């Protein structure tokens, strides 16, 4: 990350409910003006982090810093962040205008200021003509936009979004992804978006935190995380993966499924046990003599823009392949991949060590 001052910092933050540790020593920094995503399965602690930032929950230990000030004890109503809730939480007793005006009214703005603020926000979400509608007259997508407008009307430094798109259908969700991204870039404020949908995270974010079991497993740009997953969990959670166990013969030479393969990873002990990741879209089906492995086609399903094929090698490992051409079930074919398609993951490597190792041999190359 660059040397910009962070808006939000977590320093060794932990939280338990009863005896369950929900967050374990969380450390991270959020810079202003970027789109962040907290990505993880349910129960991973991602929404908990959001609630700690908004003040709905209080941390047991650690410091939560907002613009260089510790805000652990600051009540929610005095924090300069606003939340878009999962179920929108629009006030049913107020119409659209009143919902959006809720925050500005509490701030004590005068009538004209409130009116112009509300219409500015409604314009932003393209629902100006809905100002006098009641909440129960809106569709899910429209309620979603009003929830965003209401949260932004308070001019927060940071907007928190708690799985806001999960209740929408696929097409609407796609549209809202673009729109949210556009709103974020137009306003230039920080968005922290919580989701369990990896596709959504990859499409929208500047920076992703992958969470599991109350721990940040890996953080980085969408490309980093997709191309260089740190461990089995991340590789499995982000996109489709073929993961097999193997060992490093030496730098740039890995052994798995009974063969040695050239690769581009280094910095590990000789003969160290590792996991090997190969993405389905990096695998090609070729004639047997051109392949690096020989596999038998097991199943095939058509996915519109590609065929999803499973194949079994002679050791019984299953390989997921995404191919543009169809294959014949039961046929024996070759499986081809390039050295740079092989990604190596060490067991129990911390994020810092992982980053340091990557840097060390990437520098060697240059």
């Amino acid at each position, binding site marked *: 990350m660059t040397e910009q001052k962070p808006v939000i910092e977590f320093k060794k933050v932990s939280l338990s409910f009863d005896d369950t540790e929900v967050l374990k020593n969380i450390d991270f920094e959020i810079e202003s003006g970027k789109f962040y995503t907290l990505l993880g399965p349910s129960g991973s602690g991602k929404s908990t982090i959001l609630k700690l930032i908004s003040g709905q929950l209080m941390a047991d230990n650690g410091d939560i810093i907002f613009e260089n000030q510790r805000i652990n004890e600051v009540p929610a109503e005095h924090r300069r962040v606003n939340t878009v809730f999962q179920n929108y939480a629009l006030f049913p007793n107020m119409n659209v205008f009143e919902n959006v005006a*809720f925050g500005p009214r*509490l701030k004590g703005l005068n009538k004209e200021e409130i009116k112009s603020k509300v219409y500015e926000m409604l314009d932003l979400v393209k629902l100006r003509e809905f100002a006098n509608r009641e909440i129960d*007259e809106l569709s899910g997508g429209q309620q979603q936009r009003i929830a965003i407008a*209401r949260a932004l009307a308070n001019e927060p430094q940071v907007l928190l979004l708690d799985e806001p798109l999960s209740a929408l259908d696929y097409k609407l969700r796609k549209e809202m992804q673009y729109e949210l991204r556009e709103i974020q870039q137009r306003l230039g404020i920080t968005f922290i978006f919580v989701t369990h949908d990896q596709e959504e995270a990859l499409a929208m974010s500047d920076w992703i935190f992958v969470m599991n079991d109350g721990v940040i497993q890996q953080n980085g740009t969408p490309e980093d995380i997709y191309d260089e997953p740190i461990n089995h969990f991340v590789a499995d959670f982000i996109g489709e993966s073929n993961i097999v166990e193997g060992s490093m013969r030496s730098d740039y030479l890995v052994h798995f499924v009974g063969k040695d393969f050239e690769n581009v990873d280094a910095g590990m002990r000789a003969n160290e046990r590792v996991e090997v990741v190969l993405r389905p879209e990096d695998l090609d089906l070729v004639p047997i003599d051109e392949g690096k492995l020989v596999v038998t086609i097991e199943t095939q399903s058509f996915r519109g823009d590609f065929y999803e094929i499973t194949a079994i090698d002679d050791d019984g490992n299953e390989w997921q392949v995404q191919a543009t051409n169809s294959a014949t079930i039961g046929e024996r074919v070759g499986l081809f991949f390039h050295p740079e398609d092989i990604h190596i993951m060490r067991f129990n490597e911390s994020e810092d060590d992982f980053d340091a190792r990557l840097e060390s041999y990437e520098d060697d190359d240059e």
Partner: protein
Amino acid sequence: MDSLHIIISTYFFLVIYSFNAGDVMQGWDGFSLKHYQELFADTRIIEIVLNTFVVALLSSLIASVIGTAGALYIYNQSSRTMKDIVLSLNNVLLVSPDVIIGASFLILFTVVGFSLGFMSVLLSHIAFSIPIVVLMVLPKLKEMNTSLVAAAKDLGANNWQMLSRVILPVISPGILAGFFMAFTYSLDDFAVTFFVTGNGFSTLSVEIYSRARQGISLEINALSALMFVVSLLLVLTYYFVSTRSQNKKHTTRLITSATEGV
């Protein structure tokens, strides 16, 4: 259904005879409004009707405030046992027979030396109305989306603003239902009032009971007929008030769709 017919036909019987020219319910002597004239000339009964309404209105208003606060307390109580205890106490008051409540209040007022009359009746009516309000408000709180509270705080509301601008409006149908129910309970309460009234203060049910012992005058029929009209008006008012908000929404929708059509 049959029992309902019997009840309703009795009522009509009562009302029809209020217009009887004779003085008894046996035999129709022709149409007359004389019992209504007697009724309006009877200043004591008019005063008692007013007393009854004043007690009903005051007790149900005060009970609505206390009952809503109680429901909020139960809803916000984080300790499960405490919640259960308060809720059980509430339900005990709700199901215990009026005679028991009346007798207990009589003992209480006598022990503390509280003189019987308007205040004792009012206090006991408030007491038995509170659980009714709690019972009507609590489900509304439970079905309220909990993130509304979080959203209000998130947007900068303090506790009072959160309560007055979000929670109370959202649960207002429950408060309204509780108020009207408490009002009718107070209006027709006999047992509790009978125990705790005194010093010449009386309500309608108690007064009718004491008069009935000397044989029912058709004046009471006239009064019942009028009370029937009043209760009907009450039901209509409740219906109107509770559907008004939706009507308002409906009208706005009609207007918006009409203007959009243009």
